[in-house]
């Protein structure tokens, strides 16, 4: 096989400040003198036979665990502001330590409003009632008998990235800022199947979804979404849904803001108008520049973030680096992601790693030849509706920076001469 050799002098530039052509990924080409030789040029140590090759390894385990050397790869959560109300708030996905598009089940972020209930699946019930012909109760055993579907979908908390609304950029890493994002293969029963069985009354327009946690967390969901692609999920990445993600059954509304995907689902009440629950009035509404606020902001709009390099991952001297990140849209598929190393002055398209699915994150990759000087790394996603991820200035011009929720503007990591990354506004 003949490998294409990219001009080592220029590095096949695609955008300013060292962004190299994505042909390095697409065609298996490599950059001589940059990728192929270690920075020091020193010879490696002689190889030895490691001790773990000289004795048999451990026996089997019922449920596999990560290596003991990966113990730092855990969800990140701040201590509760009030110890009496622990279990309120988020535990974030450690995006800076993960790759690919699927989040490990135990690392999927959680956002709970009153802790994680310990639910016995045999005693759990899901009731469908209100404006229906036949109010129905479903056991988990009954739900498990229906034909199932899988949907690889992201869930993102509406409050994700909210610290980027602050007037000054905070010294936080990608996990602290953007870690309320996860993607699973969700499997379960189509909600429309259950609603058809109950017989939806013509006057119904909304469904109140309610959880079995001690907040009885409730949201009004448009009937159109419920009948379209909503899923009553029993499985997450092939195993039963984890308690922190809604065991034994949760709602999935692909692309919609996180808390509408009600966990520990116990009730679906069909109604003519939204119920104006606490979490769709006093919270999860977006205060605009004037005194008005957007209500019922359903889709998480097109967004992307670079996970590597990012704060805490120090570059080891000038040379080749892969810029890797995630892009997603609650309105469809990702069409394109561009990356910049000069704070958005010039852009080059990144490689999108398939499968590219609707309402699922895409892993993007770009090749970067760092010259050791200052740089500002950015990514900009475009979805298949043609919507382009806004700059922070464009975002603020539309709605101001008081909205808390649904922040989706382009994010920036400044790289200094030491190779350290910092959250900045650019």
């Amino acid at each position, binding site marked *: 096989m003949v490998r294409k050799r990219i001009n080592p002098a220029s590095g096949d530039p695609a955008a300013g400040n060292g962004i190299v052509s994505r042909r390095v990924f697409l065609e298996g080409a490599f950059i001589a003198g940059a990728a192929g030789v270690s920075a020091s040029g020193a010879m490696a140590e002689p190889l030895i036979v490691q001790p773990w090759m000289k004795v048999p390894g451990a026996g089997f385990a019922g449920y596999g665990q990560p290596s003991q050397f990966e113990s730092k790869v855990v969800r990140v959560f701040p201590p509760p502001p009030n110890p009496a109300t622990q279990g309120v708030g988020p535990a974030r996905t450690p995006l800076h330590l993960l790759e690919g598009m699927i989040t490990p089940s135990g690392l999927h972020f959680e956002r709970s409003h009153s802790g994680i209930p310990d639910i016995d699946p045999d005693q759990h019930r899901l009731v469908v009632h209100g404006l229906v012909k036949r109010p129905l109760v479903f056991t988990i055993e009954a739900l498990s008998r229906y034909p199932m579907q899988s949907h690889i979908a992201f869930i993102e908390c509406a409050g994700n990235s909210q610290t980027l609304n602050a007037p000054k950029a905070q010294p936080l890493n990608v996990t602290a800022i953007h870690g309320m994002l996860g993607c699973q293969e969700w499997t379960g029963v189509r909600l429309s199947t259950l609603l058809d069985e109950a017989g939806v009354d013509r006057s119904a327009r909304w469904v109140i979804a309610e959880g079995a946690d001690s*907040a*009885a967390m409730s949201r009004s969901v448009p009937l159109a979404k419920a009948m379209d692609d909503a899923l009553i999920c029993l499985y997450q990445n092939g195993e039963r849904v984890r308690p922190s993600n809604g065991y034994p059954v949760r709602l999935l509304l692909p692309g919609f803001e996180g808390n509408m995907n009600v966990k520990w689902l116990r009730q679906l009440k069909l109604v003519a108008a939204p119920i104006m629950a606490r979490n769709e*009035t*006093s919270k999860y509404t977006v205060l605009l520049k*004037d*005194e008005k606020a*957007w*209500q019922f902001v*359903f*889709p998480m709009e097109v967004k992307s973030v670079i996970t590597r390099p990012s704060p805490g991952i120090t570059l080891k001297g000038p040379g080749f680096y892969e810029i890797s990140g995630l892009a997603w849209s609650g309105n469809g598929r990702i069409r394109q992601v561009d990356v910049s190393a000069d704070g958005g002055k010039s852009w080059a398209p990144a490689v999108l790693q398939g499968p590219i699915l609707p309402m699922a994150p895409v892993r993007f990759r770009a090749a970067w030849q760092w010259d050791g000087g200052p740089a500002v790394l950015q990514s900009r996603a475009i979805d298949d509706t043609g919507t382009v991820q806004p700059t922070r200035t464009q975002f603020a011009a539309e709605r101001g920076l008081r909205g808390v929720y649904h922040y989706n503007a382009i994010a920036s990591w400044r790289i200094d001469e030491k190779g350290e990354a910092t959250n900045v506004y650019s």
Partner: protein
Amino acid sequence: MCTLKCLAVCAAMLIAASDAASAQLPQFGQPIAPADIAPWDISIGPDGAGLPPGRGTVAQGEIIYAAKCQACHGEKGTGRPNDSLVGGTGSLGPDKVPVKTVGSYWPYATTLFDYIRRAMPFQESQSLSSDEVYAVSAYILHLNEIVGANDVLDAQSLPKVTMPNRDGFLLFPRNPK
């Protein structure tokens, strides 16, 4: 010939499959009487639909608040360590730092009743009687100068309370059709 034959076989299989499907549509839900759903049917509409019988006064609410709410929400609802429930009036305007409380931000008084009943007090959800929920709601609304000191809240009066930010919300313009 072969194609025609194949088509005929396929068509026959499709008919058989659809017959079988219609005969065996999965229906595993169990009917339940509305009265048996009642203990779970706690959502209150903005028109007051679902409000239970009962009544509560501001004075009664003050006593319950001090005993069961104040530790998290502060004296007279001023907040800390958890959300403040009063104040912030006029803070939503342009270039101001918004203070979003029941008084300044919540558009419906029914939401207050709904939320207290389903989720508060934090350590003992759904432990308050309907009278107590009406009373605490009345007290919090009174702290925000929305109801008078002698007002009584019940299923008739609560939905008639007009919240200051009732018209503060717009539908998001880019929701899916």
